[in-house]
C-alpha cells in the first residue's frame, strides 16, 4: 500500500548538515516522511542514517537546514522535546531501565495517577493492555532484567505506542529478534501504518526492508542518493546505490576459501577437552595454518564461550591447550596475546575499540602491544601502517584523525580488525565481526579474512549468518546446548544441510 505522494508530509527535513570533528556526517540531506507509510532509510554504515535520525529526534543539533513537522518549523533540543511533538524512537540498543518492572518501563512518565499518587493497579493494567495489543502476554510486575533482549525490544515499542506517536522511528529493531518475533513486530507496524502513523524503519536485512517498506530513501557518505517507491527499486539497484559500486561478487570470496588445507602438520592451536562447568561441556578444537574454522550454532549454544575459554577470557576448569604443539597455559588474555592469539569480541563497543581515541591511535595501540610498551614506534612507521590498514579495509571516512566514537558500527569494526591485525597474530578469533553492519562493510571484512587466511593466518570465525560461515570456512564446528556436536567440511555441505545438522544431528550423543 504505497502512500499517496500527494499526501501532506508529516516530517520534512531540508538541507540537513551536521559536522563532527573531522567528519562531515550529513551534507545537505533532504528527507520526507508521510503519514501512513513505512519508509526505510538505507545506506552503508557511515552513510549517515543514525545521524539523520538523531537530528530528527533532537539528540544532535543541526549545523544547517530545517526540520518541519506537521507544517511547523521545529528545533528539538532533547528526546523529550521530540516525543512531545509525537516523534518516538526505538533504538537498536534497548533504551529502557532493567531495574524497573516491565509495566513501569512501558508507562514511565505516563503512569495513571489517582489523587496525589500513582495508581499502580491501573498503571499495570494499562501497560498490560498496550503489551497485549502487540500480542505480548507478560507479567507486567516482573523486572525487565528477567526478560530476553527480544522481549525488551517489544516492550520498547509498546512504550512508544503509549506516547501516542505520530512518527515512530525504528532503528534496527529486528537485529536481535527471531523470525516469529519479527513477524509479530511487522504485524504491529502494519497496524500502526494503517492507523496513519508514519514509520521510519532502518534495518540491514534487505528481505525485511522489502517485506515491510512502502518507500526507500538511500544515503551514501552523508549525502542523499535518492528516494524511491519500493516497486521501482529492485534489490540489486538498491545495493548498487548504497555502496556506489557494483557489489563485489561474494562468490569470488567463496571460491578462494574453498581450498584444501594441509592438516598433516602441527596445528597452530589445539585444544583438548576444553570446558567449564555450567558454561561448556569439554570440547576439542584445532586450527591449522591458513585455515578458517567456522563456529556455527544457535545463540547461546556455546560458540562465544568456547573461544573465550580458549583465549583465557574465562578460566576453563578442564582441558589443555597446545600452541604449535607445545602446551600453553592460557589463563588470562595476556597469555593468549603473548602466544599471538587475538580475540575480537562480539561486544565491540564495550570490549573493543577505544571510542575517545582517533582511528590512527586505535590501530597504533595494536602495534604498540606487539613492540612492547616502552619502545617508541617512529611516527613515519605508524603513519604508513595506519594508512595501509585504512586503505586495505576501506575505513570510511579515510581520515586517520577522526575519533572512532564518531564512526559508524561497520567502520568501528574495521578499525578493531585493523588493530588486531597490527599485533601480527597467528590465530585471529572473530566473534560476530559482521553483526549489525551493512552489506558493503560485511563484504570488505569477509574479503580481508579470506585474503589473510590465504596468506597463512589461522582464523576462527563466528557468525549467526550461516552463509558467511559457509563462505569463509573450510571446516565448520557445530555447537548446540553448550556442547560441541560435530564438525562439517564446508565443501561437502550447503546451507540447508548445515541448518539440518544444527537442528537434528547428534541428538543424545556427542558426534
Amino acid at each position, binding site marked *: 500500500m504505497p502512500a499517496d505522494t500527494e499526501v501532506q508530509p508529516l516530517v520534512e527535513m531540508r538541507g540537513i548538515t551536521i559536522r563532527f570533528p573531522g567528519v562531515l556526517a550529513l551534507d545537505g540531506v533532504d528527507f520526507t516522511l508521510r503519514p501512513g507509510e513505512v519508509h526505510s532509510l538505507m545506506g552503508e554504515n557511515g552513510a549517515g542514517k543514525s545521524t539523520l535520525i538523531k537530528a530528527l529526534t533532537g539528540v544532535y543539533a543541526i549545523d544547517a537546514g530545517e526540520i518541519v513537522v506537521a507544517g511547523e518549523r521545529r528545533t528539538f533540543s532533547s528526546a523529550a522535546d521530540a516525543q512531545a511533538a509525537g516523534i518516538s524512537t526505538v533504538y537498536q540498543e534497548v533504551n529502557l*531501565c532493567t531495574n524497573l518492572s516491565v509495566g513501569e518501563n512501558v508507562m514511565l512518565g505516563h503512569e495513571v495517577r489517582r489523587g496525589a499518587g500513582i495508581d499502580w493497579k491501573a498503571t499495570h493494567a494499562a501497560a498490560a493492555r498496550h503489551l497485549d495489543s502487540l500480542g505480548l502476554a507478560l507479567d507486567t510486575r*516482573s523486572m525487565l532484567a528477567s526478560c530476553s533482549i527480544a522481549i525488551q525490544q517489544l516492550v520498547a515499542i509498546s512504550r512508544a505506542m503509549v506516547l501516542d506517536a505520530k512518527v515512530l522511528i525504528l532503528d534496527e529493531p529486528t537485529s536481535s529478534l527471531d523470525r516469529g518475533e519479527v513477524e509479530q513486530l511487522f504485524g504491529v507496524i502494519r497496524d500502526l501504518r494503517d492507523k496513519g502513523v508514519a514509520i521510519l524503519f532502518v534495518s540491514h536485512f534487505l528481505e525485511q526492508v522489502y517485506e515491510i517498506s512502502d518507500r526507500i530513501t538511500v544515503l551514501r557518505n552523508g549525502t542523499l542518493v535518492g528516494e524511491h517507491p519500493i516497486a521501482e527499486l529492485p534489490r540489486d539497484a538498491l545495493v548498487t546505490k548504497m555502496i556506489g559500486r557494483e557489489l563485489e561478487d561474494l562468490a569470488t570470496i567463496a571460491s578462494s576459501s574453498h581450498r584444501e588445507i594441509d592438516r598433516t602438520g602441527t596445528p597452530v592451536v589445539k585444544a583438548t577437552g576444553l570446558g567449564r562447568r555450567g558454561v561448556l561441556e569439554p570440547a576439542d578444537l584445532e586450527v591449522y595454518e591458513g585455515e578458517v574454522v567456522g563456529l556455527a550454532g544457535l545463540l547461546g549454544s556455546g560458540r562465544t564461550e568456547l573461544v573465550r575459554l580458549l583465549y583465557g577470557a574465562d578460566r576453563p576448569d578442564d582441558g589443555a591447550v597446545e600452541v604449535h604443539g607445545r602446551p600453553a597455559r592460557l589463563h588470562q588474555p595476556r597469555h593468549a596475546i603473548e602466544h599471538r592469539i587475538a580475540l575480537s569480541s562480539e561486544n565491540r563497543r564495550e570490549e573493543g575499540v577505544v571510542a575517545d581515541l582517533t582511528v590512527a591511535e586505535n590501530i597504533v595501540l595494536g602495534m604498540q602491544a606487539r613492540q612492547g610498551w616502552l619502545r617508541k614506534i617512529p611516527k613515519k612507521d605508524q603513519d604508513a601502517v595506519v594508512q595501509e590498514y585504512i586503505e586495505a579495509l576501506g575505513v570510511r571516512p579515510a581520515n586517520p584523525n577522526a575519533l572512532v566514537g564518531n564512526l559508524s558500527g561497520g567502520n568501528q569494526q574495521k578499525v578493531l580488525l585493523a588493530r588486531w591485525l597490527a599485533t601480527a597474530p597467528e590465530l585471529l578469533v572473530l566473534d560476530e565481526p559482521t553483526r549489525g553492519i551493512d552489506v558493503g562493510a560485511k563484504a570488505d571484512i569477509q574479503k580481508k579474512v579470506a585474503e589473510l587466511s590465504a596468506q597463512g593466518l589461522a582464523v576462527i570465525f563466528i557468525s549467526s549468518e550461516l552463509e558467511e560461515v559457509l563462505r569463509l570456512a573450510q571446516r565448520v564446528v557445530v555447537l548446540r546446548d553448550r556442547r560441541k556436536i560435530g564438525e562439517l567440511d564446508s565443501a561437502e555441505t550447503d546451507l540447508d544441510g548445515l541448518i539440518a545438522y544444527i537442528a537434528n544431528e547428534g541428538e543424545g550423543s556427542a558426534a
Partner: protein
Amino acid sequence: MAATTMARAPRGTAERKPSAVQTFLSRHGGMMPTFAAALILVLLFIGAEAFLRGDFITPRNISALLLDNAYLLVLAVGMTFVILTGGIDLSVGSVMAFTGILGAKMLGAGVPALVAVPVMLLGGAAIGLMIGILVQYFGVQPFIASLAGLFLGRGLAYIVSLSSIKVENDAVLWLQSTRIKLGDWYLTPTGIIALATVAIAAFVLHLTRFGRTIYAIGGNEQSARLMGLKVGRTKIAAYVISGSCAGLAGLILTAYSGAGYPRNGIGTELDAISAVVIGGTLLTGGRGYVVGSMIGVFVYGTIKTIINYMGAEQSWMQIIVGALLLLFIVVQRAIVARSEGRR
C-alpha cells in the same frame, strides 16, 4: 539474510507457568538485600536479648533506639534519594553541623523558632542545590562536588561559632523533652519527625513520577533521558532533598543535645551511607528502599547500644559496621551479577 539468521524457540507463549517462587523472585528480587538487613536486625535483637538475659528488648531501649538515632535516620533518608540516582552526598554531616550551629546562634539572638527553623532547612537545601548544579550542569563527579559541600558546610559552621552554643528556646527543646507515653513506650516529636520523613520519602519514591524517575536515572541515565524523563531537574532535586534532610537533621540534633556545636557530625555522612548500603540500596543506584535505610539505621543503632551495654571499646563499633558493610556489598555484587547473567 533473515532466512539464515537462526530462529530461536518462540518465547512467552509455550513456556510452562512459572512457580510462585519464580514469580516472586522475578518481581521482587531487588528486595532481597533489604530482607537480609531485616533478618540481621532481628538476629541482633535475639542475640542481645540472650546475651543480656532478657534485659535488652525493653520498651525503654527500643524507644531510645529511635530517639538516639532520629538525626541519622533523617540523613539516611536524604542519602537514599541521592544514592538511588547513582550519586553520593558527602556533605550531609557538616551541613548538619552548620545548620545546627546556625539555628542555635539565631535562637540565642532571640530570633523566633518560626523563622530560625525554616532558615535551617533552607540553608541545607541551598548547599544541596549547589552540589546538584555542580553535578548536573558542570559535570563534576558527585564525590568531588559533595566533598566541596562538606568543606563549605564545615567552614560555614566555624564562621558561625567556634564553640558550642546552648539552646534555651522552649519550642526547640520541646521537640526533645516531650514524651508521648504509651505504657513504658515513648515517642518524642523528633522521633515523629524522623518517622514522618521516612513515610513521606517512601510515598514520593514509590507513588510519584518524580520518585520513579529517580529509580530510572539510577538504572540507566541515558535511557531515562531518551525516554523523555526530566533527568536534569530530578537529579538536582535529589541533592536538594538530601541537603534539606541534613538541615532537618541539624534541627533534630540541636534539640537532642540542647546545643549547637560546630564539630558535630564529623564522619556522620559515612554513617548515613553505611546505613543506606546495609539497608540494601545499591551504591550504583536504581535499587533500594527508604524503609531499608531505616532498617540500616536501626542495625547501626542496635550495634552501638549493644557495645555500650557490654562496656566494650567503641572501636569495635567501627569494625563491626565495616564488616557488615563489606558483607552487604558482596551480597549486592552477587545479586547484580546474577541478574545480569540471566539476560
